[in-house]
């Protein structure tokens, strides 16, 4: 020992956050396929792209926090299965990434084939490569693929639970940290993952469809439907928070280390505000807002509510990851921690991760035909010479 430190810093806070957004957005995207909710069809393709952009960066958090990230390949060549939570996470992540890639291929293959036929030059080549040389757009094959798509989405929902549940387990498995060693960790992480994923999809859908789609129109029924689902998930999340507080705070019920740690860190400690206002307060505020039909029906108000949810979930991740490590294991008092602005484990790293995610998302958004309206227009006009392009439309709002 020596200096007790917060060993897992901000990238590890971002890691379950990003993973939660993946799990949640994937489930939202599967609503139309697996649960037959056809009104969410416009989201299906977009949410796949969101899932893809985030899933690439899910393991970057722990790797950026690790001291020897160049040895990442050991996670595949000598995984500690099934004992180590992080070892199994690597396997689940790999399976999930492959599944998302296959799902993306199946969802966009027909579009790629059609686009490759109408486009010319490098665009045609690009779409031919993305379609992996396939040109078959027959109804029969599409029907077959749709079955596969639905099946994969079902497996994907299972994997989303495993994926995020296992991140909860990475913390829950560590009995040396009384505030982590909690059976609630897995369900809490899964619920907040779905919650943050829905919130993210509301924000992304509103922004993308309002400013970047061909019709520049946001379907208020769709956001309001998502808000209703989110409302129920919020109830569950608040319920888990209450259970967690009841489970950890009262000295009479919780074990000594847990209740002392909870009191030191969250009742009158450095994270009191982050817990009661950031995590619980914002969530309850969002819950109250989501209860108002007026807020649910306006996409902008729904997006603002979703932003509150996203911030609240980030606070939850921070409180779990950092709060658990503030409790000293071998010395007295609380461990001191101030997030660094620059360098290892800092705000800069997390900011960079999110910017890279946004960058990847913008790239795939420009390549993949997620917007059905624009796709129809492209298929009709193509990119053939002779078809004059209309004057540039910059603002469009």
């Amino acid at each position: 020992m020596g200096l007790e430190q917060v060993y897992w810093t901000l990238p590890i806070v971002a890691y379950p956050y990003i993973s939660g957004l993946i799990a949640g957005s994937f489930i939202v995207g599967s609503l139309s396929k697996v649960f037959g909710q056809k009104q969410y069809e416009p989201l299906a393709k977009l949410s796949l792209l969101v899932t893809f952009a985030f899933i690439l960066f899910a393991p970057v958090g722990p790797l950026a926090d690790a001291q020897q990230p160049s040895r990442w390949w050991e996670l595949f060549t000598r995984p500690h299965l099934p004992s180590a939570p992080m070892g199994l996470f690597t396997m689940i992540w790999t399976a999930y990434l492959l599944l998302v890639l296959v799902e993306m291929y199946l969802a966009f293959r027909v579009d790629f084939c059609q686009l490759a036929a109408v486009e010319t030059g490098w665009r045609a080549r690009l779409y031919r490569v993305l379609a992996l040389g396939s040109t078959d757009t027959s109804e029969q094959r599409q029907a077959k693929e749709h079955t596969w798509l639905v099946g994969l989405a079902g497996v994907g929902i299972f994997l989303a639970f495993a994926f995020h549940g296992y991140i909860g387990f990475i913390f829950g498995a560590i009995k040396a940290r009384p505030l982590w060693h909690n059976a609630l960790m897995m369900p809490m992480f899964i619920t907040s993952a779905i919650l943050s994923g829905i919130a993210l999809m509301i924000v992304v859908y509103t922004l993308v469809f309002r400013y970047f789609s061909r019709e520049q129109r946001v379907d208020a029924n769709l956001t309001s439907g998502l808000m209703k689902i989110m409302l129920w998930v919020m109830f569950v999340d608040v319920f888990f928070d209450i259970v967690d507080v009841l489970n950890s705070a009262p000295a009479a019920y919780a074990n000594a280390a847990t209740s002392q740690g909870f009191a030191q860190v969250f009742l009158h400690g450095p994270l009191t505000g982050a817990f009661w206002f950031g995590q619980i307060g914002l969530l309850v505020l969002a819950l109250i807002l989501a209860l108002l039909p007026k807020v649910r029906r306006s996409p902008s108000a729904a997006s603002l509510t979703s932003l509150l949810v996203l911030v609240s979930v980030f606070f939850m991740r921070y409180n779990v990851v950092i709060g658990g490590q503030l409790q000293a294991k071998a010395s007295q008092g609380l461990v001191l921690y101030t997030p660094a602005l620059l360098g290892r484990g800092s705000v800069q790293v997390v900011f960079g991760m999110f910017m890279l995610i946004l960058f990847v998302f913008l790239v795939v958004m420009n390549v993949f035909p997620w917007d059905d309206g624009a796709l129809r227009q492209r298929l009709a006009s193509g990119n053939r010479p002779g078809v004059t392009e209309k004057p540039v439309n910059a603002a469009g709002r």
Partner: protein
Amino acid sequence: MAENERPAQEKEGRTPDRRGFLKKALTLGGVLGAAGAFGALGIGKALAAGRAGEESQPGGMLQADGEALTWQGYADPNLNKGDGWQDWSRLLNPAKLPIYHDNFAQIKAARPKHHWVLVVDLRKCTGCQSCVVACKSENNIPVGNYRTWVDVGQVGKTVAAAGGDVVTDEGSYVQEVKVRNIPKLCNHCDNPPCVTVCPVKATFKRADGPVLVDPRLCIGCGTCVNACPYDARYLNPISHTADKCTLCVERIDAGLLPACVTTCVGRARVFGDLLDPKSEVSQLLAHYPAEVRKPEIGTKPQVFYIGLNGELATADNPASQRLIYTYTMNTNSTAYQKLNSPRK
């Protein structure tokens, strides 16, 4: 709904086109991409820090993670490599004993020849900290980290008493105070949670007892450091891997005692083979009641304490155990901050 479905452009007399959209998206992407590159520099820096071998800088005791680049005068972690101190295949397990990453219950069935344990006889510990110094120089531990340390604490209180020997203007007192010195180190648990959580099987328990880390395999993720209930592990700021007490494995393989045992002035630390009934540790444990630290966690520690008060075996309780700040104490804590402010 009907009026909503009319595209926004038509109102302004403009038609949407893909080039405009692409231009917009790419401009936004460019700005955000530049911001992302800035952030990526941070990631790159963090990744590159894994191989930093910078010039040593004069530093104090208090160095945060990543800053502690001084190593007691050894700026170069590869210094004197020819001596073989980095020959890990020879150092960690020369006899090729079986090693275990989980299922530690199998160790007993494999009938190992030895089972090395450490017995700390607290009745004899004077709190001189020479074991700390011996460990640091034997194993070249970076500044600010310790594989073993001695917590010095006061237990008890000063109470008013008529005929007390502490006489002040306010009255006389008796000091019902004991000083407890508790040497702490890795317990080389028979059920080590730190080994089970390692994602890459870099840390292992050798059949004869020691829990070791192979620094060639460790990815430095810090899971084991968090998983150890005794805070016996740390992330070595020079090698950038998890590091811990090895029971001086290279010494015991050569038939020597661990450095801390050799140097202990009061012979409080006793090392030996628990499978040998004639060994000093077996005799001590047979004759005196022994305690382990944090028995409630179920790690089965293999460092036994004679004379460890039950309350001290678990988490430190500031109400009953007032720590005296020696140089091995955690200064990165709120408790240390309060030292400088007047106590109430």
